[in-house]
């Protein structure tokens, strides 16, 4: 994992499928301050494309990194405003 950022909070949405990973990520991001980094753990393979698309189309968030391993898809989202 990258050492370029510190994780502020982790959201575990393992087991949940579309649209919940994106919807719960949005809800979690709304509770965080600017600069915070949210780690999202999902088992839904569609979350790779969905969270990427969501971050690109939503203001105030930036997708830092996505990683896959052991059936878990990890997403790192920074709150920018």
């Amino acid at each position, binding site marked *: 994992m990258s050492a370029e950022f510190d994780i502020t909070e982790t959201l575990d949405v393992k*087991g*949940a*499928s*579309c*649209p*919940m990973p*994106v*919807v719960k*990520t*949005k*809800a979690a991001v709304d509770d965080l301050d600017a600069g915070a980094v949210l780690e999202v753990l999902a088992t839904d393979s569609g979350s790779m494309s969905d969270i990427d698309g*969501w971050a690109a*189309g*939503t*203001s105030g968030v930036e997708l830092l990194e996505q990683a896959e391993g052991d059936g878990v898809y990890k997403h790192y989202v920074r709150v920018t405003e």
Partner: protein
Amino acid sequence: MSTDTQDAAVDDAPSRAELATRVEQLEEQLAEARTESEDDTQKMSIIATKGTLDMAYPPLILASTAAAFGYEVTVFHTFWGLDILHEERSKHLKLSSVGNPNMPIPNALAALPGMDRMTTKMMAKRIDDNDTATIEELIETSLDMGVEFQACQMTIELMDYDEDDFYDGVTTGVGAATAIQDMAEADIQLLV
């Protein structure tokens, strides 16, 4: 070919300085237009008309996802779409086994009594096995995210439903004019 014509054309053309000024003006206008459109929240308007289990999902999934993107979302429920908002009926939405070529049952058998119950059970089990959100979860989540669910007043009366039958937070007392107004202002309009 005469050189006079060419000279005349050059004389009529705007000077480089004039063009530069014009470009500057247009750039300013473009910047203004961009700022204005960025200030405006994007909107989505969905009309939900179906009340079968399979057709209840698309409007709810799209509504909650659009809300996650920051869209202001309204879903106008009319006819069988009302059942999605009906607290009791939404928990017992059925799947039709007749007229659905995707079902692994021939129509002649699908029409037999009890078949809808069987296909609905099959689907409900799949939803459960896959950890797909239930209709109730999607409605509660969407409401939390600010989605406005509207129940068409005319069909509430037609179906003999009561306003208290719907989930808390559902807007009643609205009609087609409200839906049209939402659609006119929306960036995305869908009929499901």
